[in-house]
């Protein structure tokens, strides 16, 4: 008989306990149960059937080499306590791999945000000072990432610009996730005319060319980074509405939702406390990926005067303005591009770790 190696204390203890209690309990409980079950002949036969089937299953288990042995099973008695086998049931605390990853990811994000917020005070050069004599210099000891067409140090500009880019993108993604997610959840949960109405509205938004809408918004608001965020927020929420709606629809029919209804909870409580935490994973991951997309989208609106105005060293603006120089002076676009890449990577790692933390099966593994 092959047995899987006892890889945790839990299993070893369980088996040990079972062995000690086996003999004493088995005979006693069987007898008592049998006497209690002599209500009707059929009942007795029913019990017999149970035991017979148990033995067949013993044989099968034996063949398959499961963790539980014959002896283990025979000590499982009907109608009594099975405290032995469940002795080790319960939470496993302590540092699992998932929790370690989460801590590392959180530390990364915190370091990144600290650099973004406070880095501006520590930059080697003034990010706004033009030095035309040193324009378009390749990376060197004096300028680690090179200089741009106005002679400004790119490392300093990238660090200074982080706060504009990262926060604009984070605010935008947070808004569309929360707003779109909320609408989608309500649509998925309630269904009916509200669902149809909101979904048709989101269809209109999706069908409208985003650029046209952005132009309309630009006409109403004056330029600037926050106006770009507002313009994009208006057109990007349908994606999350649909995503969350789909997720809610698929979990709405799960048994535990019915169970929650059965326990008398109100609809909105079920939605917030039971459904949303269960579907948070895909939403978080999608949002993290969108952080990078939104940086580029913001830059794409710059021709309308939306987005950061000069001389703000916003990364998206730096990349789109440096686009023409990529063949001759590639570092001008590589510096903000790399910064973007780092930002997106850090947030994606964090989002993955968050998603794993949400699912206790993975978290406690």
């Amino acid at each position, binding site marked *: 008989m092959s047995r899987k190696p006892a890889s945790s204390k839990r299993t070893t203890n369980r088996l040990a306990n079972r062995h000690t209690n086996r003999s004493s309990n088995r005979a006693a409980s069987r007898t008592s149960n049998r006497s209690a079950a002599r209500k009707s002949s059929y009942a007795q036969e029913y019990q017999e059937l149970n035991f017979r089937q148990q033995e067949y299953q013993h044989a099968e288990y034996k063949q398959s080499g499961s963790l539980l042995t014959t002896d283990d099973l025979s000590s499982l008695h009907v109608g009594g306590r099975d405290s032995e086998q469940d002795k080790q049931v319960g939470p496993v605390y302590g540092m699992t791999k998932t929790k370690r990853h989460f801590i590392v990811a959180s530390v990364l994000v915190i370091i990144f945000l600290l650099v973004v917020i406070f880095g501006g005070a520590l930059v080697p050069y003034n990010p706004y000072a033009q030095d*035309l004599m040193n324009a378009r210099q390749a990376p060197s000891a004096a300028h680690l990432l090179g200089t741009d067409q106005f002679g400004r140090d790119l490392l300093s500009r990238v660090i200074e610009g982080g706060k504009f880019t990262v926060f604009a993108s984070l605010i935008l993604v947070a808004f569309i996730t929360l707003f779109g997610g909320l609408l989608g959840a309500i649509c998925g949960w309630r269904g009916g005319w509200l669902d149809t109405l909101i979904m048709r509205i989101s269809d209109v938004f999706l069908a409208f060319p985003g650029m046209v809408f952005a132009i309309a918004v630009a006409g109403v608001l004056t330029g600037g980074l926050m106006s770009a965020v507002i313009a994009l927020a208006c057109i990007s929420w349908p994606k999350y509405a649909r995503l969350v709606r789909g997720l809610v629809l698929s979990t709405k029919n799960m048994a535990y939702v019915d169970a929650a209804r059965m326990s008398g909870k109100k609809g909105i409580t079920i939605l917030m406390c039971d459904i949303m935490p269960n579907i948070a994973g895909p939403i978080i991951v999608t949002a993290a990926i969108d952080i990078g997309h939104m940086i580029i989208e913001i830059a794409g609106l710059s021709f309308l005067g939306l987005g950061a105005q000069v*001389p703000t060293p916003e990364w998206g603006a730096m990349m789109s303005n440096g686009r023409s120089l990529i*063949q*001759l002076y590639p570092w001008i676009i590589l510096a903000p591009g790399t910064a973007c890449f780092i930002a997106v990577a850090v947030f994606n790692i964090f989002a993955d770790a968050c998603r794993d933390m949400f699912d206790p099966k993975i978290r406690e593994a």
Partner: protein
Amino acid sequence: MGAKRGEHIVRVRTKTIGIIFVAAIAVLLLVLVGCASSGSNARSSANSFTYGTTSTWSTENEDHGFNPHNTYCGWTTVRLGVGETLFKFDDDMQIQPWIAQDYTFTDDTTAVITIKDNVCFSNGKKVDGQAVKECLDDLVANHDRAPSDLKIQSIDADGQQVTIHLAEPNPALMYYLSDPYGTIVDMDSECDEHTCVGTGPYVVQSTSGDTVELAKNENYWDGDVHVDHITVRNISDGDTLTMALQNGDIDAAYGIPYLDRALFDNNSGYHISQTATSRVFECAFNYHHSVMQDQNVRRAICMSLSSEEFVDILLDGYGETAVGPFPDTFSFAADPSDAAPYDPDGARQLLEQDGYTDSDGDGYLDKDGQTLEITWLTYPSRQELPQLAEYAQSKLKDVGIKVDVNNTADHRNFVRSDDFDVYASAIVSAPQGDPQYYFTTQYLDSSSYDAGHYSNPQVTADIETLSTTFDTQERSDLARQIQQEVLADNGYYYASFLQMAIVSNNRVSGLEAHPCDYYELTADLRVN
């Protein structure tokens, strides 16, 4: 036995699905590759040529058509060698005979033009006085700008002669007739967005959204045409144009952005024909705003910016320095000494004498509790303009003036609502080689393009005089005087001129850049 058969079925099914997947991917890849390569069909055969341009045949510039009597469509007709005007400009911006032989002014309001005897349209029809009259009548009846430029009252035709009766004296008449809207086309044939019949070396074969196909004009009156077929592609993005030229999708390109020029300079695979144009990057000051009404502020701004620094360093030398609105290739260009000198320290002193100090220590000057802050309006479609804005912002900050840049494609709305202090734009100042056009459109308060509402009674009077002066030397002198007065007012600041280049690969010869920007495809074009 059943198990084996079941297993077999499953295996077959798995294989089938796998094969379908792989086949689908392979097909898609083929389609993608096929579509990509069909775009670059310009591995041209011996006598055909592909030309890329950012500027012609574009809906943005209102020249998406061939009827010269419709807004700017005449530019397409002339640039693509489909039509010709009565006179043309040489490299010194002097007019020379083209379809016409010569002209005279019999009196102040009457001009007689003699048409050459051997000119015919591409359909073989001879060009005589009657044909020219019909064309010009249609121009005056339909065009938006031409009637007020030309001031034509009526036209008579007699054989090869055309007599034009003017409503008032117009010494610049022949210059205006050389504008592309003066292209002579056959009024008896179709003349619309898709085609027209002109006298040029090429005829329109077909058009589509962004492409024009041209063929050789077998009936060209002025010599041999050496290229049988030309494809013209409008590529609105300068960087895309550069890459198209680099990988051979096009043989020559007009509108390579100045930042990409270095890729083709000193590159043995290409040659460049470049010229200074009269497209000037100018800054208009808004006289409706109190901060700009102070001449000391305007002068300080002019003294803080250096055209040489801007051109040599920021534009990498791809531009021409500016003093006034006309490049120094023109005889009536402004005198350098008339402009404010580049002197940032002097600018600062000027402002301090004017009562500005940095009382709150924020690095910017202020007076009466108000920071000296100006809005700089501009647009991104000309690469030089955003550079100029950022350059100015930094230089003016050093002097103590705060600049907020508004760089938007929607600039016209801001101009209309007077929502700016400085408006930087690019404008062709002497499209007909004559200064009068610029003065009347920029220096008069009634002008359509006087964004800053500049106005000076002396200047207004001088422009009046100019409109009735016929002697070219006198016109030059008067023009210089007008510019001197405007520069003394610091009514405008002129940053630089656009250096226009046509880049061709080594298959191509005869494609030359012209200062007036009208002539591109001509009979001189040859491909190997």
